């Protein structure tokens, strides 16, 4: 996949090309492209004068980074302890079934990605599902499908 890399110099400049800003730079790149394109990692290594292997190790160490493109709609299922106790696994079953996808996967048409997150810090409203930044609390297994069908 070819990408427009014209955003990169601006991102590097914002962080003054400092090697200690590597994580923040990758966060900005991910925000721009919704994942970390291979070319962008190469450019980052060049701009910061660090080995590509170091950029790659940081990019693969942290959960927030993805080396694969994400779908247009991202469904995040919280599986924190409070959500787990209140049945997050059952919610996950329903959503995976409704989208015919497993957690961590993206649909072939690039419409949907399902992610599980360890805790989004909205424990008092457990179980929580976040569809494109919109939080849904106290989700019931019977209502889980509706959350994702609505955005299709």
């Amino acid at each position, binding site marked *: 996949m070819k990408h427009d890399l014209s955003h990169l110099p601006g991102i590097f400049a914002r962080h003054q090309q400092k090697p200690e800003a590597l*994580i923040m730079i990758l966060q900005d790149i991910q925000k721009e492209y919704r994942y970390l394109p291979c070319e962008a990692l190469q450019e980052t290594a060049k701009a910061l004068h660090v080995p590509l292997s170091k950029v790659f190790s940081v990019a693969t160490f942290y959960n927030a980074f993805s080396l694969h493109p994400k779908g247009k709609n991202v469904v995040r299922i919280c599986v924190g302890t409070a959500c787990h106790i209140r049945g997050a696994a059952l919610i996950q079953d329903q959503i995976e079934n409704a989208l015919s996808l497993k957690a961590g996967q993206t649909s072939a048409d690039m419409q949907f990605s399902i992610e599980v997150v360890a805790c989004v810090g909205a424990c008092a409203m457990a179980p929580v599902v976040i569809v494109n930044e919109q939080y849904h609390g106290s989700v019931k297994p019977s209502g889980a499908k509706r959350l994702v069908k609505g955005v299709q």
Partner: protein
Amino acid sequence: MGITSSKQLLEMHKECKATFEKYPKKVIVCCGTGCIANGARKIVEAFQAALAERKIKDFSIEAVKETGCHGFCEQGPLVVIEPHGTFYTHVKPKDVEAIVEKSIAGGEVIEPLLYTNPVTGNKVERYQDVSFFTHQHRIALRNLGKIAAHDIRDYIAVGGYQGLAKVLTSMTPDQVIDLIADSGLRGRGGGGFPAGKKWRTCRNVESDVRYVICNGDEGDPGAFMDRSMMEGDPHSVLEGMMIAAFAVGAKNGYIYVREEYPLAVIHLQKAIQDCEKHGLLGDNILGTNFSFRIRINRGAGAFVCGESSALMRSVAGEVGEPRAKYIHSVIKGLWDKPTVLNNVETYANVPIIAMNGPEWFKSIGVKNNSGTKVFSLVGKVRNTGLIEVAMGTTLREIIYDIGGGMLDGRPFKAVQTGGPSGGCLPAPQLDLPVDFDSLTAVGSMMGSGGMIVMDDKTCMVDVARYFLHFLVSESCGKCVPCREGLYQLHELTERVCTGEATEADLEKMEKLSEVVITASLCGLGKSGPNPLMSTIKYFRDEYLTHIREKRCPAAVCKKLITYTVIEEKCTGCMACITACAYNAITGERKKPHFIHQEKCEKCGACVAVCKPDAILVE
């Protein structure tokens, strides 16, 4: 314009206080993440729209405050009308007009919007009388739900930065350290290390550069205290850091905020900018020789980065792997310089201790555990949310008096504290006082303050498996005992859940746990087996039922349970047939349905829709 002396700050305090108290009536709209998720922003907009045209005596739109989290997220969006304290829950935008007309202009109470006490069924009119709040003692959360989170003037109005002014103008760094040490403040992040001692060690290291770091990487699943404090009262955290920086002699500070907390980043950024604008951060703060700057680092989703040495590597833009701590990070920390790292709640306590003195702080709580602790009380309790209690409060008081008891009246089974490093405590431990030392003594720990209540429908083996699964995926992989040991422990626990384990496996798990605890490099591995060990210790019978009888008493472990229709109860409504995604249920209208076991995936969809409760899971 910058504030260049403590006198100016005092003048500004008076001016801000006058503005803050200008209107006797105030409307407080909770804008914590929970309430926003429930639509609090729309409520604020509705107030703005309703008040644009309407003139009310002693009231104006300025008196509508968007505050931080009240803690009672489950009841959100929350609206409080001061000074009476009228407390409205589950407010919808369409209710706003009635609130403006009746409650603000008229002083009436709108009964349907009031909170219903789940135990008595009575409506409660005032915020102060809701049992969830009456038993709390709020120090770290003192400003949450009172002041506008994004407004430095509100913070100054309630006495903000007076602690800093006092410290900078009338104390030496050593006196500040003595004060914090005397107060007995212990680190709220989990370990409970005395903050004063840490600060003193850092100050005594020979070095030209020192750093102060705030750990806002609240990774424990089931905990959201730090999130609420960073979002709802960012200035308290900044002020605490400034006092720490003055005490240890640091010029630069970092706040490491978890990736999942975007609102916290926004509010902290705003707070830092406001401080810079007012001269509270930068050079020669309040006209003294003290200079200090704070930068925010966003985490990137790695639980292990909550560990101090890993966090410091992450701040430096590296992979967040911990290192062996033969030399503590307080001596050789960020970029190998002496570094004080405390968590959000610890810093939030500092300004008020500086103001009120160590004796005041010690008068709250119990011996060696002064002050309060914030918990996120969640799981199977009636009132879930954020609470703050004096140290030494018992689990029973927290769960029954504040939490209102168990959800749906089910029996209490266990309470989990300390996240993946903590343990599960059974009913006989309910009268245990909650403080650092008591919890550690019974095999759990304080941790950062997650408190997850479990009922008889929670399988303790599954809980242990859950935490191990979490830790396996979060282990950084640097040391073998943690990387491989936790993995094997997870595999063995999984076998218990599927009914394949033997009693010998149970012994193997106990032995291996000891190895992992002894030999791991950092806290993640050293405490990782705690959830497993504590559940085996207190709920051994449940493990044995899985192993010997191949049965899950809580009906959670999928391999060991079946779903069947109770024919006498089934009304034949066909709701479950529609709900079942696997076509595992058949039947005709008004006749009992049937579940085909070979197709059933045990997803629970049928139970959720069955009104007459006719599906038996065992």
